[in-house]
Every structure is written in structure tokens, then in C-alpha cells.
């Protein structure tokens, strides 16, 4: 790859960008050509998906078995796609790093799945779900994609019910719905607090059925470590068998990444321990653009960190904020006291004070940021970790008095039990402690309307792509998107690409295969021979601290610049000083983690550059330089209504920024206000 010319930070410190707009990230990137999604048809938004489905070429059933598809990841987006494409008769190979496809982290989603069924006759419609999703994403998502998502949502429920997903039902035997995430209609389908589990088991069973039928081959405990791009097309992957250590080449006509999100770049998140960016990042390095990487969602109601040993964070349903009251002591001196001994007048119910009309029910990002602010002021509660108390009280005393303990128990009993199990405290008598945690990433690999990345033949689905949630995701929409992509979108769009196949067979000694194989071997060899002094986890934790502090809920220009310097230093040290024991030819969890952390470090730097470029507060993100006089988030549609799609610039060069302008024809952009 040619090294692009870059403006150095010294040359352009604090200056006007090349196009004249104010741009803090000048010097950290190279401006590239604008990017346009060429696949979404023109015309009214409501007709586009029907048009595209008709125009996408068909593949004769007899030809399908000659076409091969690799799918990486078996969560909702991957398992549903594998099952559906297997049923259609394609040859599918599916990969997951866990011991079974049923473990994928979609399984942990609690709340529910949205669908525009309008079963409650409360004014819901495809258009309203579309509208709510675009608005929830703070007008930073692509309208064609979001409309399609709303359009296919109802089919998902039909499919899942037919598979035997045991959704909650009413006494008449019909499906129950609830209102979720602050919307005014009841369109969320749920299976108690385990909706993700039940949907994933449905998709998993459909996948296992195809494995049994021989249309899908499943590779568990296999991790994709490189993408093979031959003659301009994605043609396969290099995967490591995590039990034997064997580095294998898998070739196909097309590759689908359904490898999930990268929230673990923050080290602590609600993601699973193994969730990682490696599949997506290796594809990025091979030419797939990464879009809006700084868009992360931070969830306000997680169980706080209890010590430096903390390995992950656990989410509690946001419904707790319906009845719990959030507060911290007014005075720092009270922070160590038993909260029950702090009198009412010494408590600061800060959300109720700052946002009197929404109070404790302000949106996720506002609640999260306010919690961080009071803790940074030194008024946090709970154990001191690394010198700071990171927790605020979520108090049910008033709710228990008003509703009675039984009513609170029947509403929140399972959450209270979970809290008690993890913290060892009884939330019925002592206020809960909560703190925000990284939960989901809206950013991901750039895809067009067909879900195809900038590498021909590489498709990306689910959380791994960027397309549908803009700068913030609505509750109960992640499950919807994963299944929409896998069951109903990808199977239609991928056929247009496969209609040109099967492509010319690639030999194992094709230069692209040899290069990919070699680079994987070299990386493994490097990690095993550095023989430094620090563990992989210690680097991961340090990266997480940098990201949380400077690229978390509130970002500043200075902070982001500092973070980029810190991450570059960390990267150098990591490659020189990491300590990975054991061998490659066996199960080696430190080695697996080393590869993932190496990629997280590079991603972290790009996230900071992206955040630096976006000098506006939008969705879940607050740029301190972009706020109203009374401290509210301020979006700048004139300057920033674009998707930032980043092209890998090379190991020693800056990334290239391609902007895709967001155009709304069916919806009008509005600023939000919660005061």
C-alpha cells in the first residue's frame, strides 16, 4: 500500500483543516475522497428495500451448492445468517472462538427486542419505529438502512415464535409487549430478563439443524486471525485452532464478519471476556474502512468496580431507575459513612436537581455523565479503587415505603438477588451502588446498503458493522438489528454478489494466502519470543484506563491528544516488553489475548483520532468544547452530519478519513432537550 502524505502534528498544531473547517484532528489523519453508498435505491424511503430485493440478482438453487460462504461469529447476526444461507443451499463454514456457537455474547442481552407489530394498537408503525431509531441515534445513522430495519422487524418475531422462542405471553395466549427505553409505544417483545438468551438459542438451534443437514460446517474454538484478500476480493480467512494451535487456511467465495463489538477496548465493559476486535481489525488493515469508531454506548446502571482484580462489569436493567432514586452525599466528608446514617438534607439527588422534569429517568448518556462528574468531584461512594470512589447510590427506601417491600420484590426481585450475589450487600436495606459501564459500540466496519464493506466480497453484520444506530442505540434495538441482518437482509443482498460466482479457485500457494499465513505466524512467533516482564492483561488494563478517562463519556481536545500519545507509548512498550509463556502448538490463552490486545491498542488510537475530529456532542458523546450555555450537549449538523469512515494508512502512516454525508429525505433533524 502506498504511504499517503500526512501533515505532521507539529506543522498543523491547532489549525484550520485543509477544507477550511475547524478540525482538532489535523495532523493525525490524511483527508480522503468522499464516500458514497451506491447500493441504496433512490425513491421514497418506504420503497427502497423492496426495490433492492427485486434488483439484486438471484442465484439458481442448483448453483448455490457450488458457492461457499465463510461466516465469522455465531451470535444473533452470525448464527441467523448461517442457518438461513444453509437452508438456501449454499455451502457455509462458520467459526466461533467459544466451545459452542450457543455461547456468543448476544446471549447476555436482557431487555427485549423491538418490532413494529402494533399489537397494542397504540399508534406504532414501521414509520414510527424508523423515526424513533433515527432520532435516538441523534441523526447520525443512514436513513435507508434504518427504515429497512423497522420494515423487517415484524418478520423477526414471526420467525422466532415459529422456532419455539418462549416469549412472554398474556392470559389469552397472545404475545405480551412492554414499553422500553423511554419510547411512548409498547413494541418490545421479551422473555423475562433473558430475551437475548432465548433468541440466540432459537438461532443456535436453527444453525445446529443445518449442521446436521450438512449445509453448514461449524468450527468451534477457532479464531480468525487474518483476512485473505486475493485479486481485490475477500476470499478467505486464516484461523487458528485454539486447541491444537494449528494455523489453517479457509477459502470461500465470500466472507461475512459477524464478530460483534469492541467494547473491551475499555478493558472493563459488560462484554464477554473473549469479545474482541481482531476479526474486524484485521479486515480493516486489509482495506475495510472503520466507521465512527468513537461511537460507544455507556450504560448508567452497572454494578461498580470492587477492586483492581475486577475482570468485567455486570449490567442491571435500566428499569431500576423507574423507582430508585440516585444520590451522592453533598459533602465529600460523608462519602465513607453508612448511607443510612446520612440525613435527607445532606444528600444530593443530583439528577432530580439538575433535570427536574425527567429526574432519574434522563437518557443513558446524561445519567452516565452526571455520575462520572460527581465521582470526579470526589463525592463518589463505595470502595476506593486506584484512589477514586466510583459509585453513586440507587436508593429504593422511598419506593419500598411507598409500594411496600413485596411490590418492589415482585418487580425487581431477580435484579436485587443478582446485586446481592455480586456485592454481598442487601439492596432492600442498604442503597444499591451503581456506576456507568461500556455496553455497546455503534461504530464498526463501514458497509453499504448491501452490508458489504469497502473490500468486495467482505460483508459485515450485527454489532460489527456501523450502520443502523447512529451515535446512540435505543434499548431493545441491538437484538433487532442482529437478527434483521442475519435472517432477512444479508441473505438477499449477498446473492447479488454471489451471482457472479463461483470465483476462480485460489490455490494454497497464492501469494495472498502465503502472505496472510506468514503474517499470522510472525505475529505468534513475536509474542512468544519477546519474553518481557509484563503480562498481557496488565497492558489491556492500562489501555482501558486511558480510553475510559479520555475517550469515554466526556472528551476534550487536550485529553484526546494526551490519550493518543499515551497509547502510542503503550503500543511500543507492549511489543517490546510483553510476557507470553507457553507454546503456539497448544491451548494458550495468554497468546490468544496478546493478539487481541495488540489490535485493541491500534483501535484505541483510531477511536481517539475519530473523537478528536468530531468536535460536537452527539448521541452518547459529550465533547466539552461543544455545549450550550447551561452545559447541555450541542450537535453541529452543518459540520458533522457525516459518517467518518477511516481507511488504514499503514503501520507508519496516518489513517485516511473518507466522509459519507448523511442525507435525510423522510425525517427532519431536531436538537433534543431533556430539561
Amino acid at each position, binding site marked *: 500500500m502506498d504511504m499517503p502524505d500526512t501533515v505532521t502534528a507539529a506543522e498543523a498544531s491547532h489549525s484550520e483543516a485543509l477544507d477550511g473547517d475547524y478540525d482538532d484532528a489535523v495532523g493525525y489523519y490524511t483527508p480522503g475522497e468522499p464516500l458514497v453508498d451506491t447500493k441504496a435505491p433512490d425513491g421514497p424511503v418506504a420503497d427502497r428495500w423492496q426495490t433492492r430485493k427485486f434488483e439484486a440478482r438471484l442465484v439458481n438453487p442448483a448453483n448455490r451448492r457450488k458457492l461457499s460462504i465463510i461466516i465469522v461469529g455465531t451470535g444473533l447476526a452470525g448464527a441467523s445468517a448461517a442457518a438461513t444461507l444453509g437452508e438456501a443451499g449454499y455451502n457455509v463454514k462458520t467459526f466461533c472462538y467459544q466451545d459452542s456457537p450457543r*455461547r456468543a455474547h448476544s446471549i447476555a442481552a436482557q431487555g427485549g427486542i423491538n418490532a413494529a407489530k402494533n399489537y397494542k394498537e397504540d399508534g406504532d408503525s414501521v414509520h414510527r419505529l424508523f423515526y424513533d431509531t433515527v432520532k435516538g441515534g441523534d441523526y447520525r445513522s443512514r436513513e435507508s438502512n434504518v427504515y429497512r430495519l423497522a420494515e423487517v422487524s415484524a*418478520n423477526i418475531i414471526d420467525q422466532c415464535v*415459529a422456532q419455539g422462542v418462549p416469549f412472554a405471553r398474556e392470559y389469552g395466549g397472545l404475545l405480551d409487549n412492554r414499553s422500553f427505553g423511554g419510547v411512548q409505544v409498547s413494541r418490545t417483545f421479551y422473555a423475562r430478563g433473558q430475551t437475548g438468551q*432465548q433468541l440466540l438459542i432459537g438461532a443456535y438451534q436453527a444453525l445446529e439443524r443445518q449442521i446436521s443437514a450438512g449445509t453448514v460446517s461449524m468450527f468451534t474454538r477457532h479464531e480468525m486471525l487474518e483476512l485473505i484478500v486475493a485479486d481485490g476480493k475477500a476470499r478467505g480467512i486464516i484461523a487458528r485452532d485454539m486447541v491444537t494451535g494449528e494455523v489453517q487456511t479457509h477459502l470461500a467465495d465470500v466472507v461475512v464478519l459477524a464478530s460483534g463489538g469492541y467494547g473491551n477496548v475499555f478493558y472493563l465493559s459488560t462484554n464477554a471476556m473473549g469479545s474482541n476486535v481482531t476479526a474486524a481489525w484485521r479486515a480493516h488493515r486489509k482495506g475495510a474502512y472503520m466507521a465512527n469508531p468513537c461511537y460507544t454506548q455507556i450504560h448508567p446502571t452497572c454494578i461498580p468496580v470492587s477492586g483492581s*482484580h475486577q475482570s468485567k462489569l455486570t449490567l442491571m436493567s435500566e428499569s431500576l431507575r423507574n423507582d430508585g432514586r440516585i444520590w451522592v452525599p453533598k459533602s465529600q466528608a460523608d462519602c465513607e459513612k453508612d448511607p443510612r446514617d446520612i440525613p435527607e438534607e445532606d444528600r444530593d439527588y443530583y439528577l432530580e436537581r439538575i433535570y427536574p422534569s425527567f429526574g432519574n429517568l434522563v437518557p443513558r448518556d446524561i445519567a452516565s455523565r452526571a455520575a462520572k462528574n460527581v465521582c470526579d468531584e470526589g463525592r463518589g461512594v463505595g470502595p476506593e479503587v486506584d484512589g477514586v470512589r466510583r459509585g453513586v447510590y440507587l436508593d429504593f427506601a422511598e419506593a419500598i415505603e411507598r409500594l411496600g417491600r413485596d411490590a418492589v420484590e415482585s418487580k425487581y426481585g431477580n435484579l436485587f438477588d443478582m446485586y446481592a*450475589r455480586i456485592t454481598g450487600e442487601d439492596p432492600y436495606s442498604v442503597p444499591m451502588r451503581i456506576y456507568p459501564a461500556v455496553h455497546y459500540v455503534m461504530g464498526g466496519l463501514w458497509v453499504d446498503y448491501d452490508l458489504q464493506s469497502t473490500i468486495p466480497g467482505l460483508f459485515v453484520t450485527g454489532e460489527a458493522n456501523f450502520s443502523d444506530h447512529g451515535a446512540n442505540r435505543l434499548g431493545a434495538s441491538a437484538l433487532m438489528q442482529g437478527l434483521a441482518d442475519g*435472517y432477512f437482509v444479508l441473505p438477499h443482498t449477498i446473492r447479488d454478489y454471489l451471482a457472479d460466482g463461483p470465483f476462480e479457485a485460489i490455490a494454497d500457494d497464492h501469494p495472498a494466502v502465503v502472505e496472510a499465513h506468514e503474517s499470522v505466524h510472525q505475529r505468534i512467533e513475536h509474542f512468544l519470543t519477546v519474553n518481557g516482564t509484563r503480562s498481557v492483561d496488565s497492558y489491556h488494563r492500562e489501555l482501558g484506563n486511558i480510553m475510559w478517562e479520555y475517550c469515554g463519556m466526556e472528551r476534550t481536545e487536550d485529553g484526546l491528544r494526551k490519550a493518543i500519545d499515551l497509547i502510542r507509548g503503550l503500543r511500543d512498550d507492549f511489543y517490546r516488553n510483553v510476557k507470553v509463556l507457553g507454546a503456539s502448538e497448544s491451548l494458550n*490463552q*495468554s497468546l490468544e489475548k496478546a493478539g487481541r490486545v495488540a489490535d485493541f491498542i491500534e483501535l484505541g488510537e483510531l477511536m481517539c483520532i475519530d473523537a478528536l475530529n468530531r468536535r460536537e456532542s452527539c448521541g452518547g458523546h459529550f465533547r466539552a468544547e461543544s455545549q450550550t450555555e447551561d452545559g447541555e450537549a450541542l450537535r453541529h449538523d452543518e459540520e458533522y452530519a457525516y459518517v467518518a469512515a477511516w481507511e488504514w494508512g499503514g503501520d507508519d502512516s496516518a489513517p485516511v478519513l473518507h466522509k459519507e454525508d448523511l442525507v435525510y429525505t423522510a425525517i427532519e433533524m431536531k436538537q433534543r432537550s431533556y430539561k
Partner: protein
Amino acid sequence: MNLTLKIWRQPDATTAGAMHTYELADVSPDMSFLEMLDVLNEQLNEQGEEPIAFDSDCREGICGMCGLMINGDAHGPEVTTTCQLHMRSFVDGETITVEPWRSDAFPVLKDLVVDRGAFDRIIQQGGYISVNTGSAPEAHSVPVPKDDADRAFNVATCIGCGACVAACPNGSASLFMGAKVTHLGLLPQGQPERDERVVNMVAQHDHEGFGGCTNIGECTAACPKEIPLDVISQLNKDLRTAIKHGH
């Protein structure tokens, strides 16, 4: 708190393993059991000894990836997954033994990691409803009585961790299988394949080397999701019915 840990170490599937003893100091009661092992692994890495391999992923009790025999109990002393077990369930100075799942059908791959592929293969033999994408009727066209839907959900919460097998003196996977057969058998959508499902799943179960059920009940006692023992009665009943129908 300070602990003595006796942990099974085995380099790979074919090499014999043995218990190793480790001392670990300053364990916080707020750590989860797996975080305690993380800390031990950091210590081992520091000392130049390869860290202990063990499985975990979500660490919130839902993915089913983790699972250890702790002092002889599947998932340890509480009714929960290993990842949700905390060190406050142990006392200062205690000696804790940690082993992989005990079952011939779950061979050890390394240290505390086992191969549970047999569970997937049982599901492949009928643990699903055959409905291709796009062919589903409108969701409200088939009402399901609330009691049936609720019970189907309760048994569908099985996380496939394998604790039932590890706890069973016979190494039977009847609870796992019974949960799936009951879940799908309670729903109208599951009826057309009901007979075939149970016959094929049981055949695969036996083929994998799992033992038979003798109603001891260790499985349900160890189950972190508290799947009730009577799913095994349902399994047996469905099997008898299928045989009566000529399967």
C-alpha cells in the same frame, strides 16, 4: 484472605494430569472465583509458570462457558455458575480443590478446559423446530396458553454448562436433554417433530457415552438455572409415547 489451592493441571488431552498446589495471599472476598484464578494466573505468569487454562466468557452467569468442580461440587458451594460464585463463600485459610468437569463424555483438553461438543451433537439430532427463514406464519396465528409458555421458558433457560453431567454419579445428560424436550414439547410449534426428536436425541446421548438416569437428583441440585428434575419424567414419557407410536 489466604488460600491453598489444589488445582488439576494437564498439558493436553493425551498426557496424564495431576493436582498441583498453589498458595494465594490477599484474596478479597469481593472477588469472583474466576477473578481469584485470574490473580493466581498473573502470579504464575510473573514467576515464569504457564497460567492455568480455564473457560469463561460472559462472566454473568448466562453463556454457560465456565464450569469447575470446586471441592467436589459442580460450580462450587452455591447454586450458581462458577463465574457468579464469590470468594466470600470461602473462609480464610481454606484449602480449595479445583478440577475440570468429571465425565468421560467431556474429555479434558487442557488443565480445567473440557470438550462439551457432545451437547451440540445432541441438539443436532432434533433439539430444534424445523422452520426455514421466511416461512413462518404471523406470530399471533397460534396462541399459546400462558402457563405452557411460562413453563417452556423456565426450562429453556438451561445454559448448557454441563454441571448436571459433572454432578451425576452416572454421568448422565438427562436433565440437559429433558429440558430441551420439555421446552419444545410444551409448544404447539414443537408437536410435529415431537416423537422423532426425543428418539434421536436419546440415541445420540447414549452414543456419546453419557450414562443412564437413576433418579438421584444431583443434576438438579447442581443446576445453576434450577431446571427441575421432572423434565426427566417428561423425557421418559415422551420416549414411551414415541415408542408406542412405532418409533
